[in-house]
């Protein structure tokens, strides 16, 4: 049998369903691969070998008993450490939750288990999903399989690197300002941010509740769509979950794979193809635009004049929500407690715990949020940012009256060297320049590999109207059918 770790999720599921291999064999192959390369990549914070093999055995038993299994049964999946997993350590990349084993599963994890997928373990991330390089993890940086001296993107760099290093065929991420799409772009993998409310936040450790969106990561568009279908849909435990069926993303990916985009109108966001993006990124993007035109798409330039305010608005809204959400880390109900010597007050213990448990970026964001929400500054900062959010939504609405979907490079630059941006937090924020508008609007966005720049992957982003996630999968699959997938050098 050829190498199981090089196969797509679709291929693996087919072999398992046909009895040509077993879920246990597939799982062992991936655990072996992790053992062989993860000391260099560091995609995983925790590998749950015993749990994975037990889940795989269960799939094999169900198949042997003649049960009808789902389209991803027996396929391994890596889960970002932002989702609660019952009995399996969940740290959010933070010291403040070191050793925490949640007493329950997130809805997405429940759905993954019910679908017969096999959870290999938990992947590394910037602490509390705040960051664009995974360098802000309290447990060490993840290395980009394309060049181990470079960052794998963030915050979900662990999930993206696990895919690119063939440690897992599927992964789960969460996208608040680009944390699925940007790591996808810089590792040459596919990352999709569903419509906000299209995937459940129950059991997702909250960062910015009005923006946080869990979603699928994979090496192919069809695999991402299959995973999206498994995890998506209404959840009564999340009051912001949209009570509608998941758009038919799998059918859209299959339609796109035929390579025909006749009748599809795409808009290039003109603000995102000028200054601010590297020449190599723009060159790969332009070539992809030509490819999409050849597939029959009609392509026009669209101006979204307020997108330039998206980054500053985001870095007020997200920290504001974070400063409130992270108040729950008080050293009382879970996680770390520091300085409780019997004499210190609750407030002192709380302050010492948070000081010891949070890293510098999390502290910065808590303080920025506290500032933006304080009475004297509220109108000028948080209030004004909320108005910008309205203007960005209006830009999207106006654009979608002209075109079916918007396209742009996913990121302004390719994977940068580890350490290049950590001393200047605002330089790090610029990595999310092109992905943030979608989060503020609430619509879906996907990053699909579109080429290389100096041997490093470039991603193309497709943004669609809310609850029209199928459109972006169609365009992404069509582009993939022409440019193919990208394989990093052997590790």
């Amino acid at each position: 049998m050829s190498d199981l770790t090089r196969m797509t999720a679709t291929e693996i599921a087919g072999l398992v369903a046909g009895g040509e291999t077993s879920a246990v064999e597939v799982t062992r192959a991936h655990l072996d691969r992790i053992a062989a390369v993860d000391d260099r990549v560091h995609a995983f914070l925790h590998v749950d070998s015993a749990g994975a093999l037990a889940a795989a055995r269960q799939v094999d038993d169900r198949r042997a008993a003649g049960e009808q299994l789902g389209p991803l049964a027996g396929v391994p999946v890596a889960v970002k450490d932002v989702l609660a997993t019952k009995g399996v350590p969940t740290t959010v990349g933070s010291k403040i939750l070191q050793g925490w084993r949640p007493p329950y599963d997130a809805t997405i994890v429940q759905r993954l288990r019910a679908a017969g997928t096999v959870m290999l373990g938990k992947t590394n991330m910037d602490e509390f999903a705040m960051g664009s390089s995974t360098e802000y993890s309290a447990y060490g940086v993840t290395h980009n399989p394309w060049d181990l001296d470079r960052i794998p993107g963030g915050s979900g760099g662990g999930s993206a690197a696990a895919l690119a290093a063939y440690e897992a065929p599927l992964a789960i991420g969460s996208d608040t300002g680009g944390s699925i799409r940007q790591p996808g772009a810089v590792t040459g993998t596919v990352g999709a941010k569903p419509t906000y409310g299209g995937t459940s936040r129950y059991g997702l450790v909250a960062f910015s509740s009005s923006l946080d969106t869990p979603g699928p990561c994979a090496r192919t568009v069809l695999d991402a769509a299959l995973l999206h279908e498994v995890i998506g849909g209404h959840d009564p435990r999340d009051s912001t979950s949209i009570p509608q069926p998941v758009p038919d993303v799998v059918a859209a990916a299959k339609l796109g794979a035929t390579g025909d985009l006749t009748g599809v109108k795409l808009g290039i966001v003109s603000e995102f193809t000028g200054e601010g993006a590297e020449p190599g990124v723009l060159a790969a993007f332009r070539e992809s635009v030509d490819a999409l035109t050849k597939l029959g798409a009609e392509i026009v330039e669209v101006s979204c004049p307020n997108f330039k305010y998206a980054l500053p608005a985001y870095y007020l809204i997200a920290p504001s929500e974070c400063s409130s959400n992270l108040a729950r880390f008080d050293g009382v109900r879970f996680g770390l407690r520091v300085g409780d010597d019997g004499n210190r007050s609750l407030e002192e213990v709380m302050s010492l715990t948070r000081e010891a448990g949070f890293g510098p970026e999390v502290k910065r964001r808590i303080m920025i949020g506290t500032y933006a929400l304080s009475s004297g500054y509220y109108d000028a900062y948080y209030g004004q940012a909320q108005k910008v959010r309205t203007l960005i939504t209006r830009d999207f609405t106006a654009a979608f009256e002209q075109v079916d979907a918007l396209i742009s490079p996913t990121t302004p630059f390719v994977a940068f060297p580890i350490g290049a941006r950590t001393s200047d937090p605002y330089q790090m924020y610029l990595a999310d320049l092109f992905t943030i508008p979608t989060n503020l609007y609430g619509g879906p966005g996907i990053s699909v590999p579109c080429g290389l720049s100096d041997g490093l992957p470039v991603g193309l982003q497709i943004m669609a109207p809310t609850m029209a996630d199928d459109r972006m999968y169609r365009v992404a699959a069509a582009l993939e059918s022409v440019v193919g997938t990208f394989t990093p050098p052997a590790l």
Partner: protein
Amino acid sequence: MAAISREEVAHLARLSRLAVTEEELDTFAGQLDVILQAVAQVGEVTAADIPPTSHSVPLTNVLRDDVVTPCLTPEEALSGAPDAEEQRFRVPRILDEDVAS
């Protein structure tokens, strides 16, 4: 002119319950200043007549039937607590001894 002073950062840290060190204060003061000056750009938008958006999903009053379902046992709920006693979360003293007496 700086958008934020070192003293203001110290005040924010207190409000945020972060016992930051003097060294951290020096670093954070400069960094927060850069960030705040950059994000102040949102002020360029003349937005008197524009309603704010707090959320992209226009759902209000999401209700469900009040049905009893299985939930965590007290042991499970307390399993991650740094300190517990008699099925409760145990916390350091809340009131000052002098004030309490």
